[in-house]
């Protein structure tokens, strides 16, 4: 095993240990918050596969979360389906939806793709209002049962763990390289035999599937309510911010991105005077701008820079060779 792999496994083990210990220590309220962070973690992982690895921007991942969330809520409300069973269902539904969006998206890139996905983020959460007879309209629809925070914390983090391993397995070999080759040079990728339509669409499908599972769990942590305004444009933007903070194209930074968008609203509310009322949005925005300026490549970029400085320090030191 290479040194890099050992280090990574070590980091993962420590992170998993912290998550498990916190599961026994946190208050009920903080368990709920912890579950949310796991959910952001899953959604950012998915977004990162599409935007970070394949180079296709999406400002519409809140829409896929909405589809996943409503899948869970509707199945539970109408069919009393076991909540855990609705997760793979949401995954499958969103995978198909992701493919369906990915195919027309093949014709778009850059700003145009951003706008098209933004349109998704705006329009999809409005659909429940149109079909309010079945979806409860703006009041939302509630799952048949709603589990407690302890259960949620565990389930969300187990899902996050599974999602991480799945993403790692998908990205480490041939498929991950095909994704990254498209991000780096579509021309060279195609000439090397990487089918752009297939891999771009696949990235959309997989990415949406992750978001779908995150959306299901998201409904569960909001007391089982699926409501249109929970899945608004802000959610999509938060995910993109989280992915940027994590560092596009890095799996390991994802946890920091999830912590960032999970905790920052809490922190910005607690800033005296300005943080109360609507001031929290101002504080949130300012912190995001600051982080983007200071960490243009996200946490992963920062770690990379520290690592290479460390290595060059070793190289220039004549005593070590």
């Amino acid at each position, binding site marked *: 095993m290479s040194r890099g792999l050992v280090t990574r496994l070590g980091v993962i083990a420590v992170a998993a240990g912290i998550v498990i210990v916190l599961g026994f220590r946190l208050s009920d309220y903080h368990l709920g918050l912890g579950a949310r962070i796991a959910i952001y973690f899953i959604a950012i992982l998915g977004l990162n596969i599409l935007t970070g690895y394949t180079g296709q921007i999406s400002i519409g991942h809140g829409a896929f979360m909405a589809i996943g969330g409503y899948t869970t809520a509707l199945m539970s409300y109408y069919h009393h389906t076991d909540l855990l069973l609705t997760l793979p269902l949401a995954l499958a539904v969103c995978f198909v939806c992701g493919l369906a969006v990915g195919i027309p998206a093949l014709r778009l890139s850059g700003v145009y793709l951003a706008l098209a996905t933004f349109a998704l983020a705006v329009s999809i959460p409005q659909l429940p209002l149109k079909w309010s007879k079945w979806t409860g309209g703006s009041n939302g629809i509630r799952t048949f049962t709603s589990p407690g925070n302890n259960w949620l914390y565990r389930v969300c983090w187990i899902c996050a763990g599974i999602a991480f391993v799945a993403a790692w397995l998908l990205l480490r070999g*041939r498929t991950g*390289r095909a994704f990254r*080759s498209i991000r780096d*040079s579509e*021309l*060279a990728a*195609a000439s*090397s*035999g990487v089918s752009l339509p297939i891999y771009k669409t696949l990235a959309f499908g997989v990415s949406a599937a992750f978001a779908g599972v995150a959306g299901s769990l998201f409904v569960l942590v909001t007391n089982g309510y699926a409501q249109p305004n929970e899945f608004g444009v802000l959610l999509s933007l938060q995910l993109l911010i989280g992915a940027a903070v994590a560092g596009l194209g890095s799996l390991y930074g994802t946890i920091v991105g999830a912590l960032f968008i999970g905790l920052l609203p809490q922190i910005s509310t607690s800033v005296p005077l300005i943080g109360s009322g609507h001031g929290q949005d101002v504080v949130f925005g300012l912190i995001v701008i600051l982080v983007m300026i200071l960490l243009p490549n996200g946490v992963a970029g920062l770690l990379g820079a520290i690592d290479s400085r460390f290595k060059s320090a070793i190289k220039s030191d004549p005593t070590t060779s």
Partner: protein
Amino acid sequence: MPESDDRVPPAVPLLSLQAASLRFGGIVALDEVSFDVQPHTIFGLIGPNGAGKTTAFNVITRLYRVDSGDVLFDGRSLLHTPPSGVVRHGIARTFQNVELFPTMTVLENTLVGAHTVSRFKREGAMRAKAAEVLDYVGIASVAKRPAAGLPFGTLKRIELARALVSEPRLVLLDEPAGGLNHEEVEALATFIQRLRDDLKITVLLVEHHMNLVMRISDHVHVLNFGRTIASGPPADVQRDPQVIEAYLGGELEAAS
């Protein structure tokens, strides 16, 4: 168009351009260009700047669609193959201005080249194979470095490795000698000959380095303003008045 039966080719050509034409607005980049590339040969494609050489490569690799004419590989038309399917047929290429995956390591760049031959293969076996190819082109020592920031000559070799790892029958090299010094050009000449003689790969070579082309090519085809002006063995082409004219004209322009 009537078939011309008066000339029987020595063997089935590996690649055949048949009256391929392509225009960009008012510019005729290829004007009814036809040529046959015989298997296990080095075929030099030359011509002054803007003659249509790179366009011919892009037509063969399906990045451009011909307005008329056909491209046959092994006797079958390529015109219905998507760009990503070309390499599956056994045609790999390099780019004039180097098209790599800058954030990926040299080894990963090479592994992308193995995309079509690595399905259902073990990752470890593919890495070993890619490492072997990197060794063959002489850049094994930088395998773990990101492609971005490496010297130009190294980048060209990464492209070669990426092309070769796909186990091609035909490689298209677009100005492989560009930016190389005298010794490197010598090494390149030997390298290309070894592709033909040892690996049995057919080479379609676009190059401005006349000495190199004339020395190693089995056949030279000359384009000027998208039209064929000469085609034949290097010795004949070198003496062709139209070719001399085309190149002299270019030189006069450059001198004035």
